């Protein structure tokens, strides 16, 4: 009998836990649901439902100034991602492999952009660009984004490097390949899953950044989030909702594609290593 009672108690406990978790998901997803619902709402000021429409999506495709900012954001995110991945990948391998005087300093400074509040990085870059007389805007935003993306790429790559057997590299050199060939034919393919994760991380950080971009954007080239921040006080048009809805769909697709690519690469990597022996 007591055993029976205990099990019932346990089941009730589990139900409460599940209910609690559902409530949290509801809390996190409620604003997103509102965002998506109001992107189909036939009304300019969004408080209640006024019937279904696709006109905000139409507006987005035919006449919309907001899409221009999306293009700026995309170009910046792609450039920052490419630069961060190159610097980060080379850096991660270089910092593991070589000993040099500044190594400890560099290793520790990698954590600075991650732990200090973003706003501090933002104002310090603003002051730097002012000091070296670099005009604010496009280039400044890319440089700023690379600065906070590189540490994340390196940390992701390190996690990847730790799980790799780099003796394959030595084998390649012993068999007569030079350093360059070895890097491009052996090291790079082994690092590919890490590179993809790092690129994905950089892209998502860059495309959504508002705190740092706001300081270095200047008056002319502004990213989408910075533009939205300036619009928020007067109220957002539903076309912004439509744009954000499309963006989350693309991101979800990206996540899916990333996990498929990772799985394929993992499978291929294991067969490649098997074929060596």
């Amino acid at each position, binding site marked *: 009998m007591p055993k029976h009672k205990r099990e019932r108690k346990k089941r009730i406990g589990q139900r409460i836990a599940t209910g*609690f978790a559902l409530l949290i998901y509801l809390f996190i997803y409620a604003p997103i649901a*509102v965002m998506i619902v109001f992107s189909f709402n036939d009304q300019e000021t*969004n408080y209640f439902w006024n019937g279904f429409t696709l006109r905000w999506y139409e507006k987005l495709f035919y006449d919309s100034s907001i899409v221009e900012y999306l293009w700026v954001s995309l170009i910046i995110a792609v450039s920052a991602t490419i630069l961060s991945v190159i610097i980060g990948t080379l850096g991660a*391998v270089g910092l593991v492999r070589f000993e040099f005087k500044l190594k400890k300093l560099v290793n520790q400074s990698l954590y600075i952009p991650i732990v200090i*509040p973003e*706003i501090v990085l933002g104002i310090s870059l603003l002051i730097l660009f002012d000091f070296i007389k670099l005009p604010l805007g496009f280039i400044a935003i890319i*440089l700023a984004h690379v600065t906070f993306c590189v540490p994340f790429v390196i940390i992701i790559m390190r996690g990847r490097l730790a799980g790799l057997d780099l003796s394959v590299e030595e084998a390649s050199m012993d068999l007569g390949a030079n350093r360059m060939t070895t890097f491009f034919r052996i090291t790079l393919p082994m690092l590919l899953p890490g590179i993809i994760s790092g690129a994905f991380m950089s892209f998502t950080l860059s495309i959504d950044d508002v705190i740092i971009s*706001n300081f270095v954007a200047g008056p002319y080239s502004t990213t989408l989030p910075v533009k939205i*921040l300036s619009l928020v006080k007067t109220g957002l048009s539903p076309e912004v909702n439509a744009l954000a809805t499309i963006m989350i769909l693309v991101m979800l697709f990206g996540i899916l594609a990333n996990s498929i690519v990772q799985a394929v690469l993992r499978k291929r990597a294991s067969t490649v290593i098997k074929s060596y022996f």
Partner: protein
Amino acid sequence: MNSSDTVKINSRLTKRRHFKRNTAPALAMAGPVTFWMLFFVLLPLLYVIFISFMSRDLYGGIAFEFTTENYTNMLKPVYLNVIWQSIKLAFFTTLICLLIGYPFAYYIARKPSKVAAKLLMLIMIPFWTNSLVRLYSLGLLAAPKGFINIVLQKLGLISEPLQMLHTNGIVVVGLLISMLPFAVLPLYASIEKLDKSYLEASSDLGARPAVTFWKVTVPLTLPGIVASIILVFIPSLGMYYVPETLGGGKIMLIGNLIRNQFLVTRNWPFGASLSILLILITLFMLWFYTRVARLDELEVF
């Protein structure tokens, strides 16, 4: 050619070979990241410290005269008030994040690892939507004519719409929605590592579940708890766009104060000194963290 010359040439040759073998690749690989970190992170931060001791000139630029006024300025009631309010909001955000994040992370950690990975993914997905649009939508939900008020009125629970916008409460909710994933991830990581046999041992020895929780579970997951405190508390002080979208200009964080010094009133030295304050708070919390856990566990990724 005498022998000392040969030695010289040899040593030059080895040097060149050494350069080709080691220095050149090291420079090519570690060079860019070293340059980037020194030039874009360390140098500007040192310059911020320097500027925080300079004065402001009449035109909103920097006058290179030493002063400690930027720091004594912070003690004025207006600024002290903002700093105190900011710390209070960040504190409540962190506390609530822990109170709901811990049981939630515990719930996920007890699921089989494949299910847990999916549940964690579900909390990361909102992080990939535009955070401003998300906060704005939250504002629409909480508006006087918004969904929550209408439902409450229809149910007859309230007669007048609740004034939820532009309050400290809604700013904390906004911070919570933005920060919760960062609290859950490190908590999950440390709860997941928890060896269940300790819990069994504790209950076998007669401890009630509550005692086991406080005496065994909490101490063993302390690194995760402190990591999530740091990942929530520190950014919360600087997230100026949350009060800007939900606080209606009435509520300010240290971040808003800093932003205004740089983009509105142009008092860079004072803004720099406020940034140093944020860095000091960060360093203090990291020092606290290293006392609880080893620093390298801060890597959540």
